[in-house]
């Protein structure tokens, strides 16, 4: 992978806090890359640094091999979709979309053709004459996209573009953004606080906390192998079970509260240290055994349903395990053959040791 955007050693401080801490990151050409983190983690500051709206105190930013930090925002090969969309309210849809062409030197007919093409790309053909302030939220978003893409930037920056939309519209725009990105082949950098959105849309994700990058990986990599407890807790749901790693006759054993003692799985053993640890287990790696299901593989524990949350397609059960510190959450698909269990029901839980994560944060 050749890096299109290359950030190194970026630091940015505001009067009272450190917004970016030594951020280094490579984003490849044609990637759909997400900056994911809770609000205030610096992801928007990082995006605005790439766009040229923030100037870091230290570090380097290269786009396509060119040093960018001294290049003003209006000369950078990036375009941005703002969180508020920033549609110019006094201009028509076509004037909004064509705004960036003012300095292109195209003649009137060429501009009109490019505007039509851009509007068609976002599914707004024929909307050119509408007044921009009369558009719905979803339409504004499309206008903002068309306006940014018409200049064929090397990088499209998206600052929480879907956060203002309702759930249905958001899901539709997620797949549409994905399709658009494949179609135009431009590098997309998306800022979002919604981990689900990042998982669905991205080729790679950078998870950020407190101005620093905690992990960069593919969605599967981040979900399956979170490098820290903080990342694991932020992405999806994870049960954290206290325990210890100890050695018995040359073999590493794990004592896990509620689940018992097991030989430490091979991939964890490579990096494990002796002593206290937190074990992580995703809810889908635990399953309640229903009589009608075929016998699952893995290990078994007996427990009691403490609480349940019914989601329609799934039910999430909190299960008390004897010796466990707190209930573990387990997600079950609601098959017709499975009754929805009430709190208090005695259950047998099967779980996969291979799905365990091990955190020994210092």
């Amino acid at each position, binding site marked *: 992978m050749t890096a299109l955007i290359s950030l190194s050693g970026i630091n940015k401080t505001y009067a009272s806090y450190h917004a970016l801490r030594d951020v280094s990151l490579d984003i490849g050409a044609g990637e759909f890359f997400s900056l994911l983190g809770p609000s205030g983690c610096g992801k928007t500051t990082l995006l605005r640094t790439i*766009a040229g709206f923030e100037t870091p105190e230290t570090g380097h930013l290269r786009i396509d091999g060119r040093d960018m930090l001294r290049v003003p925002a*209006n000369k950078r090969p990036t375009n941005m979709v703002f969180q508020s969309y920033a549609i110019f*309210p006094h201009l028509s849809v076509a004037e909004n979309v064509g705004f*960036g062409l003012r300095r292109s030197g195209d003649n009137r007919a060429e501009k009109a053709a490019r505007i039509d093409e851009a509007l068609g790309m976002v599914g707004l053909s024929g909307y050119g004459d509408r007044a921009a*302030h009369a558009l719905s939220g979803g339409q504004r978003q499309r206008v903002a996209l068309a306006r940014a893409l018409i200049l064929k930037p090397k990088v499209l920056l998206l600052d929480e573009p879907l956060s203002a939309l309702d759930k249905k519209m958001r899901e539709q725009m997620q797949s549409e953004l994905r399709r658009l990105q494949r179609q135009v082949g431009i590098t997309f950098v998306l800022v979002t606080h919604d981990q689900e959105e990042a998982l669905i849309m991205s080729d790679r994700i950078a998870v950020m906390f407190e101005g620093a990058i905690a992990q960069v990986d593919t969605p599967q990599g981040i979900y399956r192998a979170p490098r820290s407890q903080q990342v694991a807790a932020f992405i999806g749901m994870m049960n954290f079970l206290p325990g210890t790693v100890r050695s018995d006759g040359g073999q590493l054993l794990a004592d896990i509260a509620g689940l018992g003692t097991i030989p430490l799985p091979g991939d964890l053993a490579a990096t494990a240290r002796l002593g206290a640890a937190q074990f992580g287990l995703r809810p889908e790696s635990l399953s309640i055994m229903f009589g009608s299901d075929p016998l699952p593989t893995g290990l078994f524990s007996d427990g009691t349903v403490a609480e349940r949350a019914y989601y329609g397609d799934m039910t999430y059960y909190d299960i008390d395990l004897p010796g466990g510190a707190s209930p573990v959450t387990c997600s079950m698909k609601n098959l017709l053959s499975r009754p929805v269990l009430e709190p208090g029901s005695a259950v047998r839980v099967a779980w996969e040791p291979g799905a365990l994560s091990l955190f020994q944060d210092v």
Partner: protein
Amino acid sequence: MRGLRVYTLVYLLFLYAPILLLPVFAFNASTVIAFPLAGFTTEWFTELATIPALHTAVLTSLKIAGVVAVVSTLLGICAARAAARYRFPGKAGIMGLIMLPLILPEIIVAVALLVVFLQVGLPLTSLTVILGHVLICTPFCVAILNGAFQSLDPALEEAAVDLGETGWGAFRLIILPLVMPGIIASLLIAFTISMDEFIVAFFVSGSDATLPVYLWGQLRFPQRLPAVMALGTILVAASVLLLTLAELARRRGVRRRGGQDTGGFL
């Protein structure tokens, strides 16, 4: 509820009755300002056309008001833009000082200005009135323009820059059209205030009497009183017209931005 309605009526009557008397006596065919009315006449309006000193005063006032409207609106744009867009040390204090003339007793301002002009050696002319009026009008302009600038999404300007415009281009193409209704409202209000202002003009106008100063002078001559009433009627009508235009411009601006009307200056 009934009591409140009566209260409102009495309140409005108290506010506007004196002003309503202006046209009544302006059209009254008697030089004595008193009831009962003598009959209908437009004589006082035609008399206005025959007084050269009045014409000079009107022209002086129009000239002064025009310059004051432009200068204080320009100053207002700079202040409102700075307040909306930038953060700098002492910002709250500076904005407070700009707004201070709003609440300072005008007579104090007028005396202070007179002292300063005399000390500096500036002759009392239209220029000194303009300086005084700019001081008084600028806070009103800042208040109006602040509303216009504050309601703009800062991302609008960034979006224009992101799409290749320079800072000045973004201001000219995006910010200026969007605050234009505010600018028009500011021009009209500053113009109206300057036209009507008496105290500062009285102190610093020297020989270039403005219309209010001229009117004040005419009150010494009882036979001129009906003509003053006629002039007052015209001024009230013009003021109402200008302020209505200003408010319409502001509302149009709110609608054009598709925003919520949060109540304007009027």
